[in-house]
């Protein structure tokens, strides 16, 4: 079994006859569904900003304030996804490989950031990390500020991105056989060697998927961030906020322009991640 986003290696070819009928029907349904739910809205977005033209988009992107917010959004989302990658792996490992009282409850907690309205997440995080909050007050004593700085954005994005990594890596970990580790151990490998050479390679594609999902979610995040970031221009202003600002001035073209730029950057980033994923699949093979 490989990462859940990819069809299995024994998926059928387009025209190959199959014992189970209904391919034409399901394929048509898939196209219609994707078209209606995903592609059509995105096409509308591009269409609404198309009046700007390529040079118009370029001018929006290099406008210093927009450029600063894009940089803030993408760099912090990337950093948050890296943190989620590391800690998501640890959480997933612990939840699958160890049995302890309350494990199922803990397992359920992982999904909470999925279910929570993001504004609620933002408000609770801001309350926690504000200079008079439970975490914020002791941190303020040692002159560390989290809420209303760029660190606040990072905290929010780490929070909402964690379940993506945990949930994509978990099924793979549960399929890794303990015998592999034992074999590696009896053949004289150290613990570190076992982890790096036996356990990590099959996990890499799933980890990359989780990373990509957490990153993509972080880029588009609005609700949880605006309450904790401080929203200071050039410092802690995220691109989605600028979109709202443009809408506030009835500047639909400008707003969709920024959105289109974000879409393009995200698409390229996800494409690169997918290429690395394909490469790692080839390099490390299937489990």
């Amino acid at each position: 079994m490989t990462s859940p986003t990819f069809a299995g290696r024994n998926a059928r070819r387009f025209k190959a006859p199959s014992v189970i009928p209904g391919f034409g029907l399901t394929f048509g349904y898939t196209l219609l569904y994707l078209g209606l739910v995903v592609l059509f809205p995105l096409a509308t977005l591009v269409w609404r900003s198309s009046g700007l033209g390529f040079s118009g988009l370029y001018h929006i992107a290099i406008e210093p304030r927009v450029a600063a917010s894009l940089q803030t959004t993408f760099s912090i989302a990337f950093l948050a996804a890296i943190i989620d990658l590391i800690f998501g792996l640890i959480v997933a490992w612990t939840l699958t490989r160890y049995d302890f009282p309350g494990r199922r409850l803990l397992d359920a907690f992982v999904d909470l950031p999925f279910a929570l309205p993001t504004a609620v997440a933002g408000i609770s995080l801001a309350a926690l990390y504000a200079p008079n909050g439970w975490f914020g007050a002791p941190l303020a004593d040692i002159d560390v500020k989290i809420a209303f700085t760029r660190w606040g954005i990072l905290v929010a994005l780490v929070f909402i991105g964690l379940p993506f990594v945990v949930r994509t890596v978990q099924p793979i970990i549960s399929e890794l056989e303990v015998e592999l580790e034992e074999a590696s151990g009896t053949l004289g490998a150290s613990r570190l060697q076992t982890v790096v050479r036996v356990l990590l390679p099959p996990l890499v594609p799933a980890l990359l998927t989780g990373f990509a999902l957490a990153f993509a979610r972080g880029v588009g995040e609005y609700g949880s961030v605006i309450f904790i970031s401080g929203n200071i221009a050039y410092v802690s202003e995220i691109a989605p906020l600028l979109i709202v600002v443009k809408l506030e001035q009835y500047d639909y073209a400008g707003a969709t322009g920024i959105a289109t730029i974000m879409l393009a950057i995200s698409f390229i980033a996800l494409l690169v991640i997918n290429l690395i994923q394909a490469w790692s699949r080839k390099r490390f093979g299937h489990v």
Partner: protein
Amino acid sequence: MSAQAGQALLNVSYDPTRELYKQINPAFAADWKAKTGETIELQASHAGSGAQARAVIDGLNADVVTLALAADIDAIATKTGKIPADWQKRLPNNASPYTSTIVFLVRKGNPKGIKDWSDLAKPGVAVITPNPKTSGGARWNFLGAWGYGLDKFKGDEAKTKDLVKAIYKNAPVLDTGARGSTITFAQRGLGDVLIAWENEAFLALQEFGADKFEIIAPKLSVLAEPPVAVVDGNAEAKGNKKVAEAYVNFLYTPQAQAIIAKNFYRPAHPEAAAKEDLKRLPKIEFFTVDKTFGGWAAAQKKFFADGGVFDDIQKQEPAK
């Protein structure tokens, strides 16, 4: 459809009027019932003023809009044609049945000694205000500071700009809405002073306790005139025109004016309000947007549009 008894009337309003219309609506419904025998259901929708205007433009079926600034209703008028261009002349007092102003909320005892707008520009004073780009209330705050500067420096725009820039340099947070700023200041404990709607400041006192905060009234501030209008196009289509007009006119009646004063707004007809409600409102000298800035359309363009004065003020901040 013709006028039907029992059809809901939708009032699309902005955030800080939530408490006010909760009291106005039942009073109007009772009044309407007494006069016509019809039962009218009233619905209220509250969010940021600009977002509400956009929703109406995009098709939210409002019979009446009661927003934070004339510019938002102007936008509905020009973009949908559902409100005539001269809407602000159809009702008394610039179509504002109540006014308010911008005051300062400080922590008890006023530790930073804030008395006037110029004190907000002093180094070491943390100022909490929402973002004028996303909040109608924040635009009143900005114009309050600007009008004070013009008065103090005898019309010198450059000096005024320096003052306002220093004030915004003191802002560690720019929330997206007025309520958000109130929460940042009162609940999160951030900042030394909150620039706020007068009614919002009184609500915060009521909510969080007068032992924690006090209201400081500047000598000079902006007269905030939140306007109301019937959305003719929608009301006619729904057969609600008559009741919608009765609704906005009701806001000027002694009964509604008394409720308005009770909710910390300044009533257009103070003689109808209870004396103790009026007494709490501090004496402030006002300037108006129309006189000082030549109306909302001009102010919006000069200060808050892309590339306007507010963008300029922020631009010169070095990126950290």
